[in-house]
Structure formats: structure tokens, C-alpha cells
């Protein structure tokens, strides 16, 4: 066996080393040294993120089990940035009474899910893909049920793990039928055996459930609002951004590379799920009172927009999808940063609690407004450009009806995003949330995300870079 293959798995190995170091630190460090756990973890993770920027070619290792190319690395760095921001946000929550002794576990579990996503992204075989998917979703259930003594957290965890296991069971059944009809599990060899007979179509239908569940598109979204609401807010941020981004990109690569022969079928499936998830999630989002649940529905409809990029099967589609993921990450994390700091300082989470928020905390409410405008897609912010490119990619392949549905829903979504903005700026309130100063970690996270929202829309070279490394069918 050729051990030099391991050199290609650089980011996975550096992540595992990071996990082991943090684990040992948490286990053996004294009480005083543990006070520095958070900054040390953040700095080490930032170094690990920087390692990804080293240039590397395109190829595969372990006989095709592990594939790497530039767009994979780029998506991995997007996930890394998201995780780093989540780590910064988690500092307040991890310092609080009931969780301070579990601080190390939070980092360990989060990094394990990240490792699973890495493997999922670089998989070249269904076995590898399946193990990555499970490595990403099993520790996620532990993270959701992290607040052990809260009813909602346990309930959310139970709902998540049961639906995740169900979806992965269906997905596995699909993989087994694909294996039966094609005779191989390697992504490189499967396309040659795809003939489009009914067995394969059924197998694909079963298989795709696992990923649609992961990005919570509509027939498989039932778990999302409950899990998002019950989970600790930082975990919700992680779940709605990093987990969803990895699932969306993996679905796109699988559709392009492996199931290219079934294009008509998967376009029909995607058409239905996108139209449904954008519409249904929007209608439900309007009547939400809890801000976390509101953002859960908003993220389901955003998932519909994300997959709109994939439906055409072009290089333009891949570019727009990855760009959308990047913008969505910054906008959604900015919103969650504000929510988590407010929840920590005042314990308030309902939209009506935010009445008069502008009088007491002008800066936070401006950041929140930027984030919501970006999610809604209002021009000066990055969200407008990402939505524009996604629509352009779908129009390019003549999905006029779908784009029309999406456009109407953009207007509807503007209404409920503006409801929150109205609550913060216009609605009067006798006892608004008291003004407070945020700590340095949260401030850093807010600066990063706000800069991302403002800069990404104008900095066209990022889009051009993504465009230069993406590929079509």
C-alpha cells in the first residue's frame, strides 16, 4: 500500500489532529489553563482554516475512494469560516452555569460533524459518502440535545435523530438497489451503468431522500422547525448554515457526476421540491412568533433557492450555488449572532420582544436589518446578487415557471423579513430590551459577518474565482 496517499487528505488529517489536541487539552489541563480553552480552540481552528488555502491539484486517492479538486476545497473553506463564526458565538453560552463543564465536548462534537462533512464532500464511493453522512448527523443529534435538563432540547434531539435515522435508512435502501443494478459503488464507474430503467429510477428516488432531509427541503422538512427551536441557539446557527451548505453541495455534485443519466427524473424531483419548499415555508414563516422558529422556516425556503442553482446542471449553476452558500452563510450567521447575544443577555426570543430594539441597541438592530435585507435580497447587499445569479442559472435552462414561482415568493419573503425590521425600528414598546455591550468574541463575529454581507456583493473577483473552478455536467 502506498502511504503517500494520506498526504492528499491534508485537511482531514489536520482536523483530526486538532480534535485530538483539544481533547487532550480538555482532559488534562488544570483549572486555570481551561480558562483559555475558548481562545486556544478558535486560534487553532483559524490556523487549520488557513492550511486549506495552500494550493493543490486535482485528482483522487485510494483507488478513487477519495477525490479532491479545487471547488471541494473552496466549499470546505466556506464550511470552516462558518464553523469559526459559530465558535466565536458560542463563547457566551459555553461560559454559562450549566454548560461550562461540557465546553470541550461541544468543540469535539462540532469538529466531528465537520469531519463527516469533509468526507462527504470528498467521497468517491457510496460507502465513503454514507460514512461521512452518518459522521455528520450522529454527533449533530448530541449537539441538539446538548442542554440536558431542558425539555425542548431533549425533544428536539429525539425528533432529529429519529428522522435522521429514517432518512438514512431509506437512502441506504436506494444505495443497495443501485449496487444491485450497477454492480459497483464507485462514483467513477456508476454513471456507465445508469441506463434509466425503472429499478434505477426507484433506487434514485429512495437515495435522494437522505440528502433532501439533510438540507430540509419540503416533504422532508418536518423535523427542522422543532429541532431548530429546541436546540441551543449556537447549534441552531451551525445546523442551519454549515450542515445545510455541505448537504446542498454534495447533492449537486452527486446529481452532476453520478446521476447525470437520470437528468430528466431528478429535474422533475427538484422542480417539485423547490416549488413546494419555497412556497410552503414562506407561508408558515409569516405566522411565526418565535424568532428561531421563524428563521428555521426562512432557512427552509432559502434551501429551495439554493437548489434552484443545481436544477440546470450547468457550470453556471454550480457557481451560483456555491456563491449563494457563501452569502447565505454570512447573512444567516449575522442574524443568529444578534439573536444569540440577545437571548443570552435578556432571555427573550419572540419577535414582539424586539419592539423598540433600535432605541436601546442601535448597532445590533442595524446589523440585524442588514442580515434580513440580505436574506430577502435587497440590492446593495450581497443577498441580491446571489439570488440574481441563481435565477439567472435557472432561466438559462428555461425553467421560467419555477423562476416565476420563486420571484413571487421573494416578494412574500420580503414581507415577513420586514415584519422583524418594523418591530425593531417602528413598533413602540414601554419596556424594550435593555441596552448592553456585547463581548469581544461576539463583536468579532458581528464584524466578520457584516463585512461579508457588505463586501461580497461588490467584490466580483470572488464570484469570478468560483466561476473559474466550477464545472458542469
Amino acid at each position, binding site marked *: 500500500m502506498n502511504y503517500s496517499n494520506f498526504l492528499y487528505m491534508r485537511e482531514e488529517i489536520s482536523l483530526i489532529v486538532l480534535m485530538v489536541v483539544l481533547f487532550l487539552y480538555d482532559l488534562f489541563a488544570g483549572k486555570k489553563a481551561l480558562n483559555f480553552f475558548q481562545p486556544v480552540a478558535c486560534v487553532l481552528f483559524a490556523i487549520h482554516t488557513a492550511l486549506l488555502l495552500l494550493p493543490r491539484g486535482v485528482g483522487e486517492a485510494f483507488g478513487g475512494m477519495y477525490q479532491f479538486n479545487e471547488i471541494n476545497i473552496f466549499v470546505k473553506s466556506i464550511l470552516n469560516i462558518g464553523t469559526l463564526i459559530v465558535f466565536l458565538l458560542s463563547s457566551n453560552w459555553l461560559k454559562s452555569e450549566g454548560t461550562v463543564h461540557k465546553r470541550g465536548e461541544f468543540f469535539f462534537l462540532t469538529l466531528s460533524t465537520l469531519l463527516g462533512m469533509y468526507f462527504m464532500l470528498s467521497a468517491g464511493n457510496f460507502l465513503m459518502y454514507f460514512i461521512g453522512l*452518518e459522521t455528520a448527523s450522529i454527533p449533530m443529534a448530541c449537539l441538539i440535545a446538548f442542554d440536558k435538563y431542558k425539555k425542548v432540547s431533549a*425533544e428536539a434531539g429525539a425528533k432529529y*435523530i429519529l428522522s435522521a*435515522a*429514517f432518512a438514512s435508512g431509506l437512502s441506504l*435502501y436506494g444505495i443497495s*438497489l443501485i449496487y444491485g443494478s450497477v454492480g459497483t459503488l464507485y462514483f467513477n464507474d456508476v454513471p456507465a451503468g445508469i441506463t434509466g430503467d425503472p429499478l434505477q429510477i426507484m433506487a434514485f428516488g429512495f437515495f435522494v431522500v437522505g440528502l433532501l432531509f439533510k438540507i430540509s427541503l419540503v416533504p422532508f422538512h418536518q423535523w427542522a422547525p422543532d429541532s431548530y427551536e429546541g436546540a441551543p441557539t449556537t447549534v441552531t446557527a451551525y445546523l442551519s448554515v454549515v450542515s445545510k451548505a455541505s448537504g446542498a453541495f454534495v447533492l449537486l455534485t452527486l446529481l452532476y457526476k453520478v446521476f447525470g443519466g437520470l437528468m430528466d427524473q431528478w429535474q422533475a424531483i427538484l422542480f417539485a421540491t423547490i416549488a413546494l419548499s419555497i412556497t410552503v415555508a414562506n407561508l408558515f414563516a409569516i405566522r411565526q412568533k418565535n424568532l428561531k422558529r421563524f428563521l428555521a422556516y426562512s432557512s427552509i425556503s432559502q434551501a429551495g433557492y439554493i437548489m434552484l442553482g443545481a436544477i440546470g446542471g450547468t457550470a453556471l449553476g454550480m457557481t451560483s450555488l456555491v456563491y449563494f452558500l457563501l452569502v447565505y452563510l454570512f447573512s444567516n450567521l449575522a442574524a443568529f449572532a444578534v439573536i444569540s447575544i440577545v437571548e443570552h443577555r435578556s432571555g427573550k426570543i419572540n419577535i414582539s420582544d424586539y419592539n423598540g430594539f433600535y432605541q436601546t441597541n442601535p448597532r445590533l438592530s442595524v446589523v440585524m436589518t442588514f442580515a434580513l435585507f440580505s436574506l430577502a435580497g435587497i440590492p446593495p447587499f450581497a443577498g441580491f446578487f446571489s439570488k440574481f445569479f441563481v435565477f439567472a442559472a435557472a432561466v438559462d435552462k428555461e425553467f421560467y415557471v419555477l423562476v416565476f414561482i420563486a420571484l413571487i415568493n421573494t416578494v412574500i419573503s420580503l414581507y415577513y423579513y420586514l415584519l422583524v425590521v418594523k418591530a425593531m425600528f417602528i413598533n413602540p414598546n414601554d419596556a424594550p430590551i435593555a441596552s448592553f455591550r456585547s463581548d469581544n468574541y461576539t463583536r468579532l463575529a458581528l464584524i466578520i459577518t457584516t463585512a461579508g454581507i457588505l463586501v461580497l456583493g461588490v467584490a466580483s473577483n470572488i464570484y469570478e474565482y468560483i466561476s473559474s473552478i466550477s464545472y458542469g455536467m
Partner: protein
Amino acid sequence: MEYYLVVSAIMMFAGIYGFIVRRSLLGILISIELILNSVDINFMVFNRYLYPDQMEGFFFTLFAIGVSAAETAIAIAICINVYRNLHSIQVKNLDEMKN
């Protein structure tokens, strides 16, 4: 070979049926186990009868068994946690969050 596949298909759909109609978390968990085990049978049968000269299906089965064991362990841990908080594992009691 067909007989094995019929058995696994019946297990699979019994699992889906159970997942939908069962009222307790443990019942749902057992249904999920049925689904996962039917997948294992499928892989073994396909490998043994259709592609006897390779081992991919067997390997996949081994990994699937391991992963499903991990999944069940976590699910049971969470069920215990639910029981501690609510003193019940009936699905109808998991209604803290609505809308």
C-alpha cells in the same frame, strides 16, 4: 435470490409503516432497525448472487451494521434523556413546540 429480496422488501415497508404508526419512541426505533437490517440483507444478496467475484457489498454491510449500532446507541441515550425530562416516551407527550 428473489425470495430474499421479497423478505427484505417486506421488512423495509414494515419498517416504514411502523415508523409512521408507532406511538412510542422505542417502537419507532425498532422500526428504523428493521429498515436498516433489510438494507443489509439486500447488500448481501446482491453481492452473493449477482457479483460473487467481488466484496463491495459485504464491506458495505459491515459498515452499515456498525453505523446503525452507533445511531441506535445515540437514539436510546436521547430517549432516556426524554424520559428523565418528561417521565414518558410516548410521542404524544413530545408537544412542547407547536405551529
